[in-house]
């Protein structure tokens, strides 16, 4: 169980950067008042960020990922989280066999 010094410093730098982003928002709202417009913007952030994170995977990776993403979204409207994840994972694995991956 050894830790390389350069690796340790890199992990520390990543941790400091991440903690700064996590605390940053709390500090920000102490100085900015939240009006009707700001509230609407803040409410749009959750879905917009999540959509941005998944869009490249869901839309431009390949047909297996796109179809599996759609299947997961449909499953999510009527099944619990874990079952929907399972449907996504299983369907992407099967579809990759069908399409042979690598697009």
């Amino acid at each position, binding site marked *: *169980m*050894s*830790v390389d010094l350069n*690796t*340790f*410093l*890199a*992990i*520390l*730098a*990543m941790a*400091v*950067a*991440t903690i*700064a*982003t*996590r*605390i*940053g*928002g*709390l500090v*920000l*709202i102490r100085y900015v008042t939240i009006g009707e*417009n700001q509230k*609407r*913007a*803040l*409410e*749009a*952030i*959750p*879905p*917009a*960020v*999540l*959509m*941005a*994170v*998944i*869009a*490249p995977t*869901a*839309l431009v990776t390949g047909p297996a*990922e796109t179809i*599996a*993403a759609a299947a997961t*979204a449909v499953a*999510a409207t009527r099944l*619990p*989280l*874990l079952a*929907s*994840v399972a449907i*996504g*994972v*299983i*369907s*992407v*694995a099967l579809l*990759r066999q069908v399409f042979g991956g690598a697009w």
Partner: protein
Amino acid sequence: MTPLIVAVMPIGLVFGAVAAAKGLTPAEVTLMSALVFAGGSQFVAMDIWTHPASWAALGFSALLVNIRHVLMSASIGAKLEGFSGPARYASMLLLADEIWAMAEMRASNAKLTPAWYAGLAVPFYCAWVLTSLTGAMVGALLGDPKVIGLDFAFPAVFIILVMGFWKGRETGAVLAASACAAVVTHQLLPGVWYIAAGAAAGVVVAMLSGGRKEAHA
């Protein structure tokens, strides 16, 4: 919040396995998961990992990948009335995407309490650290995670969370703008600018459609 923990376990295992394949020791993998605790940036770090590791490059990429946390903590921070000052900051240290999304959903119909938040975040954190360690040790046995689709567990969880935020046509416009901006940016620019671009596009559309709101279910 069992489903969330079960969903994070394969991702933790895959991360540990990927990191071990990059030459990190189990101790280093555990340290990173425990101190950074941000899956997206940890996977990106593995993509650009060098020997010896460059703290500047890795620190900067973690900052970019996690810049969305500023928006998240601003958003959820306004809903922590029941938290003392120190508890607010402590809770933000465990603000992962999934924790935040769950907390936002909870906040839309109940008051957030420190006990509820800890009950969600602490087991999730422990599961992430422990499965990373396990993955680092048994990584070789998993084989290629892509073959069994495990790499898709992370996007699948996000898709499900997005569906939970659906409130009608306005949400559709926000999502469409975010998706378009993210895909275009992803094709044109290296790195993780696409997340910032998608977030910005979604927020702009929400502000523009601000005239007519109300009547949400």
